[in-house]
């Protein structure tokens, strides 16, 4: 026995000795290129694209090969969507789906793309990354979709992006704000701003406009969105000379926040930053006021707050709070007003920010398909990349060289169960 283990150790040492740094050219192989699982991009002769997250340098456009373009089924252009229709994030996925569906219906009513109708194929990923990757693979290889739209959660978008990028299918994430998502490669876009910017916006607003000196943070430990916003808010706020008195955490799906709020209350902050989704924030607000955190301590948040449900869940407790968002509902722009009216008519509720972003992502994709010379992956990708000053409902969209939307954020205040425009903060 002992002799065997000695031999094993020796072998291991030998293997270790043989190890060395890989040569420069192959530092970052595309996922699967070593084994040939995804040989479809490699075997066809095109160099493997930078498929990994850490390699931020985008490959020259057009390197990955387009998937078999034989999937154009007659007179229908197929778009794929992956969303969390079940599981803990289902309410976000359903909003996004509604927004996308609305955009597609509108586009079809006005003639579709290149004389063809657009159809959306929606797959549920149960809020799990492996299911998201599965759904994306299915959309790419079985359904041969032209563009993939989705996910809300950055984890799931990352999973999908690593399938879409090597296959050369453009993907637009409506609302994944983690910077890593678009770093996957040059086929991955988003129509929302990223975490650092939003954290910056609220830190700036609270420090300069509200004169907050001592802020507390209540973050969602299970959501990368919340962690990202917390990180950048904390950094900016401290740099500006403010003080974070305490950072408490909850986990998505919790519904009792009294213990954390009791701890926050003990620190007597001037404001509480809660970068979560409306599903939790409404309840948090109610319990905060109930525990006697005075109304003069405002609650601050991000675009995840935007929903009619916030007023329903938060009631009067949410009054006087501020959050950063993509657009103001008072915006007289006909696009915004038309969207709100039609959404209400179709789904019986006022759209939340996720529905707005879903709507935008679909419209960007459709506009790009109209503009592109043909419906191949690279052509659509190039058309999406050229998106500039696109009038979306959630702000004017211009995509930068990192394929992120650059747009100003607005700060809104909750007043009498309505949203009041406060100010606009530009990047």
């Amino acid at each position, binding site marked *: 026995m002992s002799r065997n283990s000695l031999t094993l150790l020796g072998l291991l040492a030998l293997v270790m000795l043989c190890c060395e740094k890989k040569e420069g050219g192959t530092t970052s192989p595309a996922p699967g290129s070593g084994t040939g699982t995804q040989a479809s991009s490699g075997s066809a002769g095109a160099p493997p694209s930078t498929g990994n997250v850490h390699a931020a340098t985008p490959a020259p456009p057009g390197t990955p090969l387009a998937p078999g373009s034989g999937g154009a089924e007659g007179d229908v252009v197929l778009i794929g969507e992956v969303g969390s229709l079940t599981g803990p994030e289902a*309410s976000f996925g*359903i909003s996004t789906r509604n927004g996308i569906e609305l955009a597609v219906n509108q586009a079809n009513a006005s003639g579709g793309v290149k004389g063809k109708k657009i159809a959306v194929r929606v797959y549920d990923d149960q809020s799990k990354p492996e299911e998201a990757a599965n759904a994306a693979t299915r959309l790419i290889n079985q359904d041969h979709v032209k563009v993939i739209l989705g996910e809300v959660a950055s984890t799931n978008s990352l999973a999908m992006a690593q399938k879409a990028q090597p296959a050369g299918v453009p993907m637009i994430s409506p609302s994944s704000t983690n910077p890593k998502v678009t770093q996957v490669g040059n086929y991955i876009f988003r129509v929302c701003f990223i975490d650092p910017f939003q954290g910056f916006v609220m830190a700036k607003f609270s420090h300069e406009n509200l004169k907050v000196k001592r802020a507390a943070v209540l973050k969602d430990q299970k959501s990368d969105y919340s962690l990202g916003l917390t990180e950048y808010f904390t950094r900016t706020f401290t740099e500006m000379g403010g003080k974070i008195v305490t950072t408490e955490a909850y986990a998505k799906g*919790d519904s009792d926040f*009294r213990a954390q709020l*009791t701890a926050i209350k003990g620190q007597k902050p001037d404001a509480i930053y809660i970068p979560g989704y409306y599903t939790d924030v409404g309840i948090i607000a109610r319990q905060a006021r109930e*525990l006697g955190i005075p109304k003069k301590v405002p609650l601050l948040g991000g675009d995840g707050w935007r929903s009619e449900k916030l007023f329903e*869940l938060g009631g009067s407790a949410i009054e006087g709070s501020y959050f950063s968002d993509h657009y103001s509902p008072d915006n007289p722009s006909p696009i915004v007003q038309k969207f709100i009216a039609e959404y209400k008519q179709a789904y019986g509720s006022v759209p939340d920010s996720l529905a707005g972003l879903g709507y935008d992502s679909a419209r960007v994709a459709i506009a790009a398909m109209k503009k592109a010379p043909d419906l191949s992956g690279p052509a659509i990708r190039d058309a999406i990349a050229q998106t500039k000053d696109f009038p979306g409902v959630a702000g004017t969209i211009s995509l930068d060289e990192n394929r992120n939307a650059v747009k100003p954020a607005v700060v809104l205040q909750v007043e009498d169960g309505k949203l009041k425009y406060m100010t606009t903060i530009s990047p």
Partner: protein
Amino acid sequence: MADLLQHLINGLATGTIYALVALGYTMVYGVLKLINFAHGDVMMVGAYLGYAAAQKLGRTAQSSFLGVLLIFLAAMAGCALLGLAIERFAYRPLRAKPRLTSLITAIGISFTLEYGFQLDFGPLPGAAPRAFPEIIKATEWFVIGDGDVVIWNWQVISLLVAVALMLTLQYLVFRTRFGKAMRAVSFDHRIAALMGIPIDRVIAITFMLGSALAAGAGILYAIKDTAIHPLMGLYVGLKAFVAAVIGGIGHVPGAVAGALLLGLVEEFVVGYTASSWRDAVAFGFLIIVLLVRPEGLFGRVSAEKV
């Protein structure tokens, strides 16, 4: 100090609700030796039934005493029927089969309820959380200092309701003919059947009672959290099961004690460390209790007969 007292109160309030759910687990386990995994989801259905009843009653009626009573009764009756149906169609046909079989059907039912309630067509509610109507307007019942320690009326009410339901249950189990039958079935259902006890009926009624308790817990939970959603039963059910095991599964006062302990432990973890560690500490606590006392705190040590 004030913090400590406040956490103590909040922990007890959470614990009473766990206790109601844990009682259902323990009762069903007592008669069937079955972990009813769908129990937490029955609680969720109870909360939704309460929500529907409150909507039907309208804003003024729902906050009157009679209205609240009606909401509770409606939800409890609805869940009792649900429990009856689950027992009849999913568990009874498998009673003579290995116990694991019914565990799988329990899981199947749990999936069906959880995911079914996430659909948004027909009468189904959809995945988004809903604000539970304020059927009990939250007011401060008792305040120490400048709002340092607050006891809320709903905390008192849920404690009273929970205690009342537990006392009723204790009376039912130990003082009535039905209770005697239930204990007999729990002891050995083959012998109980030979003694002329209608075990089908006893088991069915036990399920109905447990489900009704879960519905009551669901509404109290909804009042506490001010919102309901389709997955609310998942972890509450799990925690209640943990509580029942800590107390010694099958033991009625043990379930209550276990639940209160668990509620306190969780509250202190969240209050003094971080909420993200709560589940780990809750299960760590369970493991330690079981390693020291393998039958739970109050469970009877059963010598194995050969």
